């Protein structure tokens, strides 16, 4: 027992000495690069979004490194960014080991990934390792009510999606405006939160939720929900289905001749290939408008142009813009931190206020991002922003009955 304690103490001493020495060494010489790490699903079930996010990061890094990197005051020079991305195969357990590996490689910050299973596993690691973590698609508010200090979500949250949807309804002329909303609740925490806020905001704005039905991520037949909404006379539908579910929902709504004036599926219709696969049946469908290629924010044009040049055959999805924007937030914080240690970067992140390609981003005390809440709608083959707090948008189109569509 004695000797074991002795070993422990010796190990601790050695460690402290080592850290001290390395800290001194670091203080004297500027590192060759700023290491930032991300574990992303490049393969497996969530690869589609993952690859888009990674592309967004890579493009943002390229743009910054083209200008010499990020200015770090401590060394009084620009240092290029080295982005290390590991594939987690859409497996949350792998996310954990990949993030630990990045920790061992001494990254100064983590960037988030696309799918929430991995993000949830990852953010715990960030918090315990005390490494600032900037997410892209972590839309569950509950995550930020745990008192975590290192987690930042510069993206739209459940309550923003709901608010944007109701804003869109508000923009419809009084005589055509839907009144009764059907809420299809996906049985995950995100769906639950949306339901909570939908109730809260709808009450404030004078809409009734005339129907509520739960469904699971593996649900493939929605006919009962659709018929119930139809017979309850609901003229608006809100849901956060998985992408394949949103496709099935639209097909079944057409089959059952249910065409509410407004339909908002937060996930799925935001995919860049949505019109390509759904054709004109996608018309009038509303979805998250967090980022689109047409947004007038600074830098967005260049992002779109460079992406199209680099990947001429790929459709440009929303995760690309979100990834790009997340990196902008992190780079801004690093340059304001003036130092390259994790704690300073975290401090700097809390006071973020930067206009990215998707608009202005700030964080509240919890790390919940405040970003422009925007909603988009498919209008004749184009995803058009219909709600934005920052600029004038296209008008909201009210869906016509299926029989009247060409």
């Amino acid at each position, binding site marked *: 027992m004695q000797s074991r304690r002795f070993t422990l103490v010796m190990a601790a001493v050695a460690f402290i000495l080592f850290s001290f020495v390395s800290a001194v060494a670091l203080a004297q010489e500027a590192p060759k690069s700023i290491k930032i790490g991300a574990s992303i699903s490049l393969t497996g079930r969530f690869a*589609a979004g993952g690859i888009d996010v990674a592309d967004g990061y890579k493009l943002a890094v390229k743009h910054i490194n083209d200008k010499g990197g990020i200015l770090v005051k401590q060394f009084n020079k620009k240092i290029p960014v080295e982005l290390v991305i590991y594939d987690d195969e859409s497996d949350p357990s792998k996310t954990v080991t990949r993030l630990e590996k990045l920790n061992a490689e001494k990254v100064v910050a983590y960037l988030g990934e696309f799918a929430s299973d991995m993000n949830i596993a990852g953010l715990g690691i960030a918090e315990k390792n005390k490494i600032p973590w900037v997410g892209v698609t972590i839309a569950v508010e509950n995550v930020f009510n745990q008192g975590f200090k290192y987690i930042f979500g510069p993206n739209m949250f459940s309550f923003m999606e709901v608010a944007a949807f109701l804003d869109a309804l508000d923009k419809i002329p009084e005589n055509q405006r839907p009144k009764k909303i059907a809420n299809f609740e996906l049985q995950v925490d995100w769906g639950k939160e949306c339901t909570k806020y939908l109730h809260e905001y709808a009450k404030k704005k004078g809409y009734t939720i005339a129907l509520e039905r739960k469904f699971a991520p593996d*649900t493939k037949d929605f006919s009962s929900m659709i018929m119930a909404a139809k017979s309850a006379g609901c003229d608006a539908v809100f849901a956060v289905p998985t992408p394949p579910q949103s*496709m099935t929902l639209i097909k079944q709504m057409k089959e*059952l001749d249910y065409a509410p004036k407004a339909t908002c599926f937060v996930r799925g219709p935001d*995919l860049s290939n949505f019109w390509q696969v759904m054709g004109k049946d996608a018309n009038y469908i509303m979805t998250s408008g967090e980022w689109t290629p047409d947004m007038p924010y600074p830098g967005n044009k260049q992002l779109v142009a460079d992406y199209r040049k680099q990947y001429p055959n790929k459709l440009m999805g929303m995760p690309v813009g979100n990834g790009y924007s997340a990196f902008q937030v992190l780079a801004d914080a690093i340059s304001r931190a003036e130092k390259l240690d994790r704690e300073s970067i975290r401090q700097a992140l809390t006071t973020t206020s930067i206009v990215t390609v998707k608009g202005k981003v700030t964080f509240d005390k919890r790390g919940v991002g405040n970003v422009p809440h925007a909603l988009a709608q498919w209008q004749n083959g184009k995803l058009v922003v219909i709600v934005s707090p920052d600029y004038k948008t296209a008008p909201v189109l009210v869906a016509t009955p299926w029989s009247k569509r060409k």
Partner: protein
Amino acid sequence: MEFAQYITYGVINGSLYALVAIGLALIMGIMGIFNIAQGSLAMIAAYGSVLFFQHMKIDPFVSLALTLPGMFLVGVFMYLTMFMSMNKFDPGQKLRNSMLVSFGLVLIMETLATILWTANERTVTTAYSGTVMALGDLRIPYTGIATIILAIVVIFGLHFFLKHTTFGKSIWAVSQDHDCAMLMGINVKRTTLVAFGLGIALSAFAGAVVSLHTVSPAVGIDWTNKALILIVLAGVGSINGILFAGLLLGIVEALGVYLVGVHYTGVVGLLIFIIVLMLRPQGLFVRKAGV
């Protein structure tokens, strides 16, 4: 009326389940090979349908003319490289090894599909998708009608083929008694090869219908799950039973929505399955005693 509408969708879903399961049933019943890659093969076939539609505007039901022989060749390749060598094993070992090998195939096909076509969801939206035949208030989608008809034609057709054609009978004979069939002058090697290819080719039918729903590389295992349920419900070796088992599962799931809500649909179906498994492990549509 609403109730009738539920049941209609239940019948449509059940027909699709049966279409996915029929190839698995044929291969398992005839050759004792447990191919859990069947759903993934349907996924590959569905991508075929999607690509033909996207690039050449060929309707999924028309492109069957291309996907069917394509999947047949895939099946022949699979058999020659992997499954033929298992004939030397006893039935239990054959079942186990084929299950494991086909599990490896699931991994390969999923990854391959992601690399080739990305993990983005695809679907085929034809001019007639979403259109329905209205019987009063009851609305029956044409794609659904096509699914039901396809399931009936394929499954009864297969049954007829096995029972009433010379080649079908020889497949049946090989499955009943390998050695005896050989003595009767049947070319066992060729017969099993073609039977296996046929079983895999059947996944093209499922693929055509799946493409009208949604396809992504990961859906294979979901469809396999449904197919496995059907195999047990129907009983190994039952061909016609697959259709009835599919309809049963589809309708039970539709009723489950009534009883416990949409989010427990999957559980209701599986519970029925487990009950049948416990009480009648030989299946509902097989008369002979347990295996």
